[in-house]
């Protein structure tokens, strides 16, 4: 019974890897950018992600958004920390894939039912009363109390599912703000001191749309890339 439930809750690496492999792609930064929309759409629409894993889904999402932003707007500023996070994500995906492949092989081995059977401890030896030395009733109480205090009950969910939505929205807002600022900076650098206000506004809109688009539409990516290319050409003259 446990297992059926567990299958539903896939981790972010699992999801990302599946999306990349579905398109028969290698694990590269560019390919992560290609499946970014699908990833975000999936975590937005998936109500079955539990709270414990949501943080990790969101954390990976923010890296993916960064990768995607960078692929659309190569001039966007990425901090060394962020760059490291992106590299780590690629590495982690590769490592995760190794273990996943191994787990599939182990699953196959298990299905073969080539078990080794052992004997029970001291099978065939008759029980001989062998009381432990130096154990009194208070030791038993102490041991049982320790067992009780070590019990961690499964957490209660209701309140936290509300919190979960806030966390996700907040995270996206936060990222949007950060990206907007960076797009602004990025354009300012490109255009030197003479800043064309219209262009900056276009860029802002593009950025906003991108943030929205990564959640809703996939096809507009091409349109954006057109806009981007046009814009960059105009500036580089």
């Amino acid at each position: 019974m446990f297992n059926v439930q567990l299958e539903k809750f896939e981790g972010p690496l699992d999801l990302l890897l599946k999306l990349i492999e579905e398109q028969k792609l290698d694990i590269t930064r560019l390919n992560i950018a290609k499946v970014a929309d699908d990833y975000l759409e999936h975590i937005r629409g998936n109500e079955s992600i539990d709270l414990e894993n949501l943080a990790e889904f969101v954390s990976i999402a923010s890296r993916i958004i960064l990768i995607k932003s960078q692929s659309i707007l190569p001039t966007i500023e990425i901090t060394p920390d962020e760059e490291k996070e992106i590299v780590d994500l690629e590495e982690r995906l590769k490592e995760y894939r190794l273990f996943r492949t191994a787990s599939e092989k182990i699953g196959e081995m298990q299905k073969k039912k080539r078990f080794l059977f052992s004997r029970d401890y001291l099978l065939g030896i008759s029980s001989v009363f062998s009381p432990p030395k130096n154990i009194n009733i208070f030791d038993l109480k102490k041991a049982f109390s320790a067992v009780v205090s070590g019990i961690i009950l499964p957490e209660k969910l209701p309140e936290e599912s509300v919190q979960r939505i806030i966390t996700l929205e907040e995270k996206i807002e936060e990222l949007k703000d950060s990206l907007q600022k960076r797009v602004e900076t990025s354009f300012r650098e490109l255009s030197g001191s003479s800043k064309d206000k219209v262009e900056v506004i276009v860029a802002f809109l593009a950025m906003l749309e991108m943030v929205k688009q990564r959640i809703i539409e996939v096809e507009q990516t091409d349109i954006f890339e057109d806009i981007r290319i046009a814009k960059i050409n105009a500036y580089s003259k």
Partner: protein
Amino acid sequence: MPTPNKLKSVLESLLFVSGEPLKLAKIAKICNVSKNEVIAGVDDLNQDYQKEERGFAIIRKDDSVQLATNPENSQTVSQLVSGELGSELSRSALEVLSIVAYRGPITRMQVEIIRGVNCSYVLRTLLIKGLIERKETVDIRGFLYEISFDFLKSIGITGVKELPDWEELSKNEKVEELLSDSEQETV
């Protein structure tokens, strides 16, 4: 039809896992051979064991056979057994003992849910040392474990209710909740 060598190999495996004498007819049925072939295989094996000075010997009584240790090794074997019986209780063993004391009669599954780890080996250790006992139930719960009378006596009480704070600890809410949660999940 197994080859003679394959039959010997299977016979060894079967005798090894069985704690009790096995009926020749039962072995024959499992291996899909005649009883005479089983007898021949068992005799062959026993000869191998003697010729090659192995650690085993097959005891045959009437229509049953059982694998045992080579009597020449009995001194070393009893050294192991008495060492095991006389060994101090590990922390896990003491924990399981305390769970059986405060929560018994209790099933193995319940002990495992409370501790969060598999307990079959530890329970067996405690059984062999005579600190706990088990009785079979008629329902699906299987065996129920409880503290042995000998052990109670050795720690100076006549029943588990005389354990310190028994009333409170035996009905601890956390334990109750954990067990009832797990019951729901496994339904």
